């Protein structure tokens, strides 16, 4: 088993490969993370995403175009609970720079911003309505994890863990999920899982605890009764989208929806309980 770790997209990335020859595959996977970060980061002024947010219209590269289509599709599938147009709401809440640089405490109260602006795609051109700016922070990591896993899989069974977005190809992999009382191990094969929660990227503004999971319906960090949600999906993009959507739904609705959709999920509530749903026992 070979392991390679590096930092990208504001998080720790870990690659595991069940093969003796992995150096080239590791390099290719790391390069893919760097390439996608250069395209999709909202914190880099020269990224393609920043140019789109600034200019309102852009002839997009295939990756930005594809990810935008995936994100808009996810917005429709989740009834708007997943929404790529949360950029301004994140900035208004205080998450206006890479998380390492966000002041953890400030007296000024956070603001709010509307989400749900219209995004048009015609051919390869993306157009944003006034006030609509995109953020691919979560889904972008899932997208990169899927891409890196596909590259690594050429060398053998592999696992990619991009700060909670885990994609595996080939073999079975025991993956730990944080619960209210420790770690639960899930054995995963050919698929992905992702965790969304309020317990890592959080800060205080004007005496209120805030976090990065914006509820597009309010334009503010969600008040859901959950700490984190882990969802297993066919790929890391799907898992990431549904982890956020179930988080915003709240405990009872999340369990019901995960069962209905058949999405294996581990749901940790603020009250300190851990709920298994979507066929997970």
């Amino acid at each position, binding site marked *: 088993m070979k392991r390679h770790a590096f930092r990208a997209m504001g*998080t720790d990335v870990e690659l595991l490969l069940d093969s003796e020859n992995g150096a080239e595959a590791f390099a290719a996977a790391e390069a893919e993370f760097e390439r996608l970060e250069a395209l999709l980061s909202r914190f880099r002024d020269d990224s393609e995403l920043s140019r789109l947010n600034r200019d309102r219209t852009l002839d997009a590269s295939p990756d930005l175009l594809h990810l935008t289509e995936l994100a808009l599709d996810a917005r429709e599938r989740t009834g708007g609970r997943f929404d790529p147009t949360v950029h301004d709401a994140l900035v208004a809440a205080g998450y206006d720079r890479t998380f390492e640089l966000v002041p953890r405490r400030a007296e000024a109260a956070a603001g709010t911003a509307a989400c749900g602006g219209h995004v048009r795609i015609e051919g390869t051109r993306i157009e944003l309505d006034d006030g609509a700016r995109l953020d691919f922070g979560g889904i972008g990591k899932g997208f990169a994890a899927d891409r890196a896993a596909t590259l690594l899989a050429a060398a053998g069974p592999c696992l990619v863990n991009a700060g*909670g977005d885990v994609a595996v190809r080939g073999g079975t992999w025991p993956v730990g999920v944080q619960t209210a009382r420790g770690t639960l191990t899930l054995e995963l094969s050919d698929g*992905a899982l992702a965790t969304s929660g309020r317990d890592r990227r959080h800060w205080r503004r004007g005496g209120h605890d805030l976090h990065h999971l914006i509820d597009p319906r309010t334009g503010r960090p969600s008040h859901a009764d959950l700490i984190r949600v882990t969802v297993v999906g066919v790929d890391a993009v799907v898992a990431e989208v549904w982890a956020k959507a179930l988080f915003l739904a709240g405990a009872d609705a999340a369990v019901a929806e995960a069962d209905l959709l058949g999405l294996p999920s581990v749901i940790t509530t603020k009250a300190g309980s851990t709920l*298994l749903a979507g066929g997970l026992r």
Partner: protein
Amino acid sequence: MTSHVGRLYALALAILVFFLTWAAVAAHPWATSATRDPRIAALVAREQRIRHESVAVRRIVNRRWAVYRRQLHARQAQIVAAKHAQLASGPAPSVRVVTLAPLTITRTS
């Protein structure tokens, strides 16, 4: 003078008695309900029957509407479930809870 006034009173009384008698005769006080017009009786009976039938029909319609609403909700739930299943982008991969030590841990991203 007295006899003239007396004659006027007598005339007025006579006119009053005449009209009272006319009104009494016109009211047919001797006629009983049993002798009501049979067409009116039939209409009244028909009206009551229609009233009862309309209540019964309303009950049946309400019952069928309730059944329809239940079936519609069930069908809509099936459509939503099917749509959601489609939205979840296919079946979830194989996963189960095990007691092995994990090789990696997913944390909040």
